[in-house]
């Protein structure tokens, strides 16, 4: 379900390895795919398969060992403002209120307080945090804090929103609500999203395409399109059509689990 066929991100022959005292740890191997404008991509794979590494590479935080990532045909060389990254932990500055946290990217870009205030109000509304602008993050629940983090990532108006297991530390119920809220937000914004998740249900509900990675070193085993009509809503989770996508994803994941994890097993495991 692509709204446009314009390519936003191009990942080409990406290979990432970390030099560690115990030897070279290969995180990603020969990863190539394209992300289209307005698309929602989910990355799934066994833990430690390099999903987060891939996302950090897309954000420009981690240079690839080989290969290239291009944003609108321009290679990404360093931290990329056009990418808004949300971590598993909200990473809100505890000495700033919710509104001040969301305003941070704007403040760093030198926007005037008046401009900021307007934009922050919009963002708060978008993520359903109106009324909490003057609260400190410590007082927010996990789900609310993560909404604030998403709002902060959106503040800089990124071309692509990168979500690194954003609901990973939330309880199951909150997690489901957050997925629903994200679905709604995406449907409203139509912003390109690349999201790492370990929940296949979440991936099936949200994504246009699901990229399935193998265990370390991460290689793409499948790119599975989710052909469910939009707009979707969380009730779909109980629907057989989604269940069959979930089954497909699980099968693909199973294929990718190989005993070789890219490094000699350490003595204790």
């Amino acid at each position, binding site marked *: 379900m692509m709204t446009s066929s314009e390519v936003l991100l191009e990942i080409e022959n990406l290979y990432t390895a970390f030099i560690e005292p115990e030897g070279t740890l290969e995180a990603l191997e020969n990863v190539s795919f394209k992300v289209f404008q307005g698309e929602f991509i989910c990355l799934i794979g066994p833990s430690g398969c390099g999903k987060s590494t891939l996302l950090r590479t897309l954000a420009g935080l981690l240079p690839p060992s080989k290969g290239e990532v291009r944003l609108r045909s321009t290679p990404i060389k360093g*931290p990329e*403002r056009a990418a808004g990254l949300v971590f598993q932990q909200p*990473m809100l500055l505890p*000495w700033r*209120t919710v509104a001040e946290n969301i305003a941070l990217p704007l403040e760093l870009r030198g926007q005037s307080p008046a401009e900021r205030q307007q934009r922050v109000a919009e963002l708060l509304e978008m993520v359903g945090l109106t009324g909490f602008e003057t609260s*400190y993050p*410590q*007082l927010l629940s996990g789900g609310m804090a993560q909404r604030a983090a998403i709002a902060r990532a959106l503040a800089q108006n990124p071309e692509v929103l990168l979500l690194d297991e954003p609901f990973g530390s939330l309880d199951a119920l909150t997690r489901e609500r957050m997925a629903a809220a994200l679905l709604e937000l995406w449907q409203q914004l139509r912003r390109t999203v690349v999201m790492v998740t370990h929940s296949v249900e979440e991936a099936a509900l949200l994504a246009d395409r699901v990229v399935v990675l193998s265990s370390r070193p991460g290689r793409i085993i499948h790119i599975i399109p989710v052909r469910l009509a939009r707009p979707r809503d969380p009730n779909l989770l109980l629907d057989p059509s989604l269940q069959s996508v979930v089954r497909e994803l699980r099968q693909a994941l199973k294929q990718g689990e190989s005993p070789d994890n890219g490094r000699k097993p350490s003595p204790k495991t």
Partner: protein
Amino acid sequence: MGWHNKKINGQQHPSPLLYLLSLGLVLLLWQGALLALEDSARRFILPTIAEVVTRFLKLLGDGSLVRHTGITLLEMGLGLALGTGTALVLGYAVAHSRFLAHLLEPIIVTSQAMPIVALAPLLAIWFGPGLVSKVLVCALIVFFPILVNVSSGLNHIDTGFQQVFRLLEATRWQRFRWLEVPATLPAFLTGLRVGGTSAAMGAVVGEFVASSAGLGYLVKQGQNLYDTPLMFVAILTLTLLALATYGALGLIERQVLKWRCIGKT
């Protein structure tokens, strides 16, 4: 948008009555000691409360207490400023440069292992009996706790925050102003409270060694003349000074770090 003035659920303070009670306890002990010494030949070693109060009022009245206190305060203040400034600069340097850390660490640790009190006579020879030698003793005492707190505070900033700032392409200055300063402020203020309170000690040690004024000088003079009431007045004033410094710094800490109290009760 400034710091928000949300109501803070601070710790509950003990009732002021309790302070009065502990003060009463001390006075009671004092009076008891006086009774025990009453017929002894060594009666003069402990003045009565009335003697101390009289002396205090006299010294206050002729302006000499204010003058001596002012001098000690000036030494403390300048020493605190010098020690804090140096500690901040070096703390930042040590936290950001491995080279400087390796270079300076032995010097810094050695300077702390050396009892600073023992340095005071040497400083008096080098810089004379005036203000400078006392300021330096104060600064040396204040320096270390602040340096340690600041550099460890800087080193312990969450890498997630660092990544947020990198991703936002923050300049070095922006990272300093928006991340490092606020994140290190709590540790810095803790160091300042520890260092600031011991600044009084530095000033007094400096005055013991060589001086012609200051509260430490008064204590020393009292000792030479067996004038215990004078010593009591000077010591009590010094104590009040240190307590006031501690209290003032604590107050600043609470004002600046309002956000820290939130959600912690």
